């Protein structure tokens, strides 16, 4: 099909599929993420040979096997380290990380923190199903407190974390949330992420049909969704509800739900470019059941990427020493000669 000497023909989503049989459970949300990813790569004309998917361990980390790009299925939690090294060595590549809530936030939490803080120019797909699937159903860092699992028969005791609050807390330049079942929105968010320069952190709610089925039901079911979700769009008020009559406003620093008709000018207007991330952080704190679950691009700002900064320094050092020769480096500052 492809020919190394000619420009690649325009690819269709199917061209990004590898020859490997996809082995997620029937009904798993991962299928949709795979499909939307292929779709936006085709849409953006991304070259397969210049694209690498790196993953850790878990159901979602099988993702690279199903993409006909370069792929690296690494070890638990460490995808950000491998992807960072790859991107620093090869800034020309499009690097994506496929990871899950356990992989990215439990065993790999430290790496994720530093990846985001450094703003390495790569994309993170965080498949959040709020459960450990591959090890057959233990509570994860995002599992709701009190959830009964095999390792928490009387209910889990750990307070769950909010991945987007975490990302924003360590300086995320792109933080977004979508849902595997919301195909159009997911496609939109993934496309935004792909175009972002810097670490794009995308949390994707994804239902585990086996071990945590229905955990996102209120946000995905047709008749429930409108009242239980709010879609943040830049420059638009945070309005939701079947009749779009409810909105979120700030009472001092505390968000509250009000009737839009009664407070038409007080509804919070979403600003994904706000410089402090305070508003995005506030949004990331809203969750079911007290608030509608927010979706959308919470934050998208520009900041220097680590990969660019690293090469800026290298180029500056090379410019300052254009005649740097290895032999003189080996010689060092003091030499002597014996006859």
């Amino acid at each position, binding site marked *: 099909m492809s020919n190394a000497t000619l420009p690649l023909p325009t690819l269709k989503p199917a061209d990004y599929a590898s020859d490997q049989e996809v082995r997620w459970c029937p009904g798993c949300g991962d299928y949709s993420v795979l499909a939307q990813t292929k779709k936006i790569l085709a849409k953006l004309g991304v070259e397969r040979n210049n694209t690498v998917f790196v993953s850790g361990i878990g159901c979602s980390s099988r993702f690279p096997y199903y993409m006909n790009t370069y792929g690296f299925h690494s070890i638990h939690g460490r995808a950000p380290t491998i992807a960072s090294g790859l991107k620093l060595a*090869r800034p020309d590549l499009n690097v994506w990380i496929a990871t899950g809530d356990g992989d990215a936030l439990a065993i790999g939490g430290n790496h994720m923190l530093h990846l985001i803080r450094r703003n390495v120019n790569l994309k993170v797909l965080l498949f959040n199903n709020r459960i450990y699937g591959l090890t057959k159903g233990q509570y994860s860092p995002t599992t709701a407190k009190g959830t009964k699992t095999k390792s928490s028969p009387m209910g889990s005791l750990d307070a769950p974390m909010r991945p987007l609050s975490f990302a924003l807390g360590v300086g995320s330049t792109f933080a977004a949330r979508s849902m595997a079942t919301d195909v159009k929105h997911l496609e939109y968010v993934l496309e935004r992420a792909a175009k972002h320069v810097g670490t794009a952190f995308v949390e994707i709610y994804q239902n585990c049909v086996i071990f945590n089925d229905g955990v996102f039901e209120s946000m995905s079911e047709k008749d429930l969704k409108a009242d239980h979700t709010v879609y943040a769009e830049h420059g638009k008020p945070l309005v939701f509800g079947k009749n779009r009559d409810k909105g979120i406003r700030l009472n001092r620093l505390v968000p509250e739900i009000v009737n839009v008709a009664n407070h038409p000018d007080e509804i919070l207007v979403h600003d994904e470019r706000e410089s402090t991330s305070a508003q995005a952080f506030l949004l990331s704190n809203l969750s079911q059941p007290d608030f509608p679950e927010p979706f959308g691009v919470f934050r998208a700002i520009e900041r220097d990427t680590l990969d660019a900064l690293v090469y800026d320094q290298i180029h500056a050092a090379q410019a300052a020493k254009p005649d740097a020769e290895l032999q003189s480096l080996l010689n060092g500052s003091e030499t002597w000669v014996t006859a």
Partner: protein
Amino acid sequence: MCPSDFPDCECGTTDTLHPPTEQHRKQSISVPSVTIRFVGDSGDGMQLVGTQFSDVSALMGNDISTLPDYPSEIRAPAGTIAGVSGYQVQFASSDVFTPGDEVDTLVAMNPAALRANLASVRPGGHVIVNEDAFTAAELKKAGYQGNPIEGESLAGYRLVKVPIDRLTAETLKTSGLTPKQIERCKNFFSLGVICWLYDRPLEPTLHYIDAKFGKKLPAVAAANSAVLRAGYDFSETAEFFPVQYKVDKAKLKAGKYRKVTGNEGVALGLVTAAKLAGKQLFYGSYPITPATDILHNLADMKAHGVVTFQAEDEIAGIGSAIGASYGGSLAATGTSGPGMALKTEAIGLAVMTELPLVIVNVQRGGPSTGLPTKTEQSDLFQAVLGRNGECPLPVIAATSPSDCFNAALEAATLAIKYMTPVVVLTDGYIANSAEPWLIPNISDLQPIKVQHPTDPATYHPYSRNADGARPWAIPGTPGLEHRIGGLEKQDITGNLSGDPANHHRMVQLRAEKVANAKPAGAPWIWTGPESADLLLLGWGGTYGAIKAATLELQAAGVSVAACQIRYVNPLPADLGDALKRFKKILVPELNLGQLVMLIRAKYLIDAIPFSKVRGQPFTVSEIVRAANECLQGKHPVIFNDAPAAVATSEG
């Protein structure tokens, strides 16, 4: 005849330490080698003067070997034994293999330093003390009851009391510096004293001071220079020293030399390997003693295109290197034992994905945090065996500071040739020690052949060449898109495979690849005959002490040879046969017997361990004694107060 250092003395006394006479004064005596130890508080600048003295000696053409010895606390309480920092250097007119067993001249800046180091001084050696520091308060902090520099307690040494504090202050009274700044100059006074005693020129040090402080702090530069000169002139004028010592140039192999430490050697070896492979060097690492200087050195090589990444932890250090290797860089990571433990799972990933990677372990005292600034050789098992699954990789052990360059270069060569991670074992001793290094000419070095496949028609991710290596296909290559990872792969295709027979085959293929890997440098270094009563079998950084001991034993007529192994995995192909030509084999190691266990297991030979685990390298005399005891049929033990390495059965 006078038993002192004066060869032509006719004083007639038999007192070793008879006072200097007019006849002795201002003579100069040639000696073959000298060991000096500078000791003081960790804030006293002893590392600096020790390094500077070594540099000058190397520039003068001596062979040198140095040993910095400092506490893990940056500033332990001043004046205490815990805060003592030392720097030992042996310089000689012949080959030097160690920093010296016994100290000829000790320079002690305070009572604690004297107390902690006096035992290392040979009887009759010089003990030069800063007498101003021997106050009641300082003596108490050091745990002295009385004052050792008064009375007879140091009668067996040539005690020289120099009022360094006062003379430094006097020299700088018009300098305009604060008392604190003046205090900081006193280390240069001691250096001046020693430079006179051993007839070293001041110019290189004056040049150093100017380069370091001249531009930014001209007053400090002037002060240090003045104090250095004052120390030198004081020694020349005062009658403390009856004689000046000279150490002639060593007859080193002809060529251009520099001084190099092991950590510098590793950094230079890696950047050279990258150049020879036509690759960018990527170094991902997390700070850890005593390996951090490798990162420091490489971070300063940006002009050579080196990418360094100070990662968030040890795992990220190696993870980033694996990612860079996958991307086509020459990638390396460096650490010490505890960091090596953290990297273990990722090393397994590199073995499974068969990516080239250099992993440097600068061994230190363990287990756990252990003795961070002290040396040890106790990570051999960890390097060779310490991973889950059947997880083989080549392991190269550097034998000296300059050999760290070779080891790093060879490791990169093997890593690329065999598509495998390679471990380089150095240790805290050779990492921080320095010696003269015959600088290689880049154009004389072999290029490292690198092949990246480009033809989709013939590419298979897990096909193998004659060396057993899989192809290094790098992202960006059209048509070679493929997936790798930690799961077992199907032979040739690289697709996931849980097939039992395939797994067995893949385990064997990986093992055979490493077992058959050909050394990229000397697999071992031999000293002496191919057959003898005794073989001293060592590995890595104990080379100098074992070699010196072997030469000493041979000179005494003992039938002995030494073999220092550089390739600890796979072991040298002929080792088994070579060992059979010796009646006895003694294995000195800075651990409880790791190489000896591998040797016994692999060759069914009754090799005898000789263990030292004290955070210090072997002295030559320890190995000489152990060798003699071994020949007498004993199992040598390092010190009487140390437990035997191997429990022996009753009877």
